[in-house]
């Protein structure tokens, strides 16, 4: 497995629009050279759930967007070529209802020009609600990763995106890595509820301490697993906390909704602090 681990700063799935909407805020370089994870793409188009899809809560937002996306075919025909032309390193996030769907998506994406890698969404905060393959135990996610890995060229990364659930993350990370994941993304939005009790996922600064605990625990227990941190990254301090805890890259999600220039600033800040380090 000689695939490069992306980073150090990436766009988190579902928080960068189709790429076009983010471009105006990225500074002169635009998307060029940016690791852009798409929103999760499913085989068939999905309209997404009803509104309100996002509700603000202290320190974050609760979302139940419902994976709106145009389906694989339309994505390949329109969004992917645009992203590739813009110079992005496109990591396609994939989501399926069955292991077969994941394999299918991986196979078809392996042939699409310009796909730099895959991110497998096996940690949605409400997979049952959105009709995704249900990950109850770590071996469920590992089986999905193995199925995807079989279909996707070994020289391109397959990332396993897991839920930041401290009681399962070590086992999940280890088994996904063994199943062929180039790196493990820790993690997704945290299972949560809207004020009215409806299921959703909590994201944003509120969850950073939770995901950080998961990253630190995984890194201490299975240091050989490359980690990408995701959850509440908003500035250089929150990003370096993850990097110090053992992550080799960070993804930025909710912060972009709050301030679309976060990514540009973060790239600059991390480069500066990198240069200052001996």
């Amino acid at each position, binding site marked *: 497995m000689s695939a490069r681990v992306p980073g150090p700063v990436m766009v988190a799935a*579902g*928080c*960068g*629009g*189709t790429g*076009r*909407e*983010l471009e*105006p*805020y990225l500074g002169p370089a635009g998307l060029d050279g940016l690791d852009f994870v798409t*929103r999760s793409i499913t085989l068939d188009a999905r*309209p*997404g*759930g*009803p*509104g*309100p*899809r*996002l509700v*603000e809560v202290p*320190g*974050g*937002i609760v*979302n139940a*967007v419902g994976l*709106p996306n145009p389906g694989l075919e339309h994505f390949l025909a329109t969004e992917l070529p645009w992203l590739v032309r813009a110079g992005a390193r496109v990591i396609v996030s994939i989501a399926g209802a069955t292991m077969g769907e994941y394999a299918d998506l991986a196979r078809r994406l392996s042939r699409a020009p310009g796909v730099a890698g895959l991110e497998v969404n096996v940690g949605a905060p409400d997979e049952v609600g959105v009709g995704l393959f249900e990950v109850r135990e770590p071996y469920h996610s590992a089986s999905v990763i193995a199925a995807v890995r079989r279909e996707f060229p070994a020289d391109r990364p397959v990332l396993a995106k897991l839920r930041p659930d401290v009681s399962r993350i070590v086992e999940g990370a280890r088994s996904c890595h063994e199943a062929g994941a180039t790196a493990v993304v820790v993690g997704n939005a945290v299972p949560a509820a809207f004020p009215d009790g409806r299921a959703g996922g909590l994201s*944003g*600064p509120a969850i950073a301490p939770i995901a950080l605990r998961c990253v630190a625990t995984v890194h201490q227990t299975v240091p050989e697993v490359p980690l990408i941190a995701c959850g509440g990254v908003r500035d250089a301090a929150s990003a370096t906390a993850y990097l110090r805890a053992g992550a080799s890259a960070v993804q930025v999600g*909710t912060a*972009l*909704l*709050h*301030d*679309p*220039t976060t990514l540009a600033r973060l790239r600059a800040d991390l480069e500066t602090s990198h240069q200052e380090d001996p």
Partner: protein
Amino acid sequence: MAESRAPVHVTGEVVATKRIGGYRHLTLTAPGVPESFRAGNFVAVTVEGHVARRALWVHRVRASSAFGPTLDVVVETRGSGTAWLAAQPVGARVTITGPLGRPFALPKDPVSCLLVGEGYAAAPLFPLAERLRERGCQVSLLVSAPDEAHLLSALEARRSARSVTVLTADGSVGQRGTVADHVDDLLVRSNADVVYAAGPTAVIRAAAAAAERAGAWSQVAVEVPTPCGTGLCHGCPLPVVGEDGVDRVIRACTEGPVVRGDRVRWEAM
């Protein structure tokens, strides 16, 4: 539809603030925003300590003032964010993204237009009226509100509009009644080819339906919650019928907020 130029994310400043009736009118600098504004665009404002953004229609832009280019917004205090914004004094710094969203499409020919707006949401109709008049369109304006305090002043619009009708639900000023009660009649009287509407869903829906009955085009400015305002989160679903006749859900902030009235699936909102 016309495409808006690239939005910017900038720190601006409150240069004037005044209470008019039930609203707070703020004048802000926001380098780059007034310059590329078109009627129907909105801005997203950052509220300190809150993750989601607050969307506001742009009521007016001035190309130059003592402070350089400025924009005006009309704020109705509702929750934490609008309360915070309304309380900002002159000199306060405010982070603003804009101009956002698809603006009103302007007719190529100098046709007759009816503009229908209610409450603060009538705000984008005023710069629209000016643009239409510049193009030689005949503009009729219908401004409505629950009561006088929530009526945007139509005084300035009298320059741009051939006729201005004022409605309040309680009859405290202008005619008594709702947009639904009066819009068909006005459409006939103004002989409009295009209806532009902005306001609560019931109002823009009534305007779109009246346009359809009269065989006119309509463009409506839709308000659904827009957590980011920039097209990134897909959190602002607007159910429409696509040009191909297929049901779709678009992002109100990016593919809207202005859409053709006959495209909205009102019953799915």
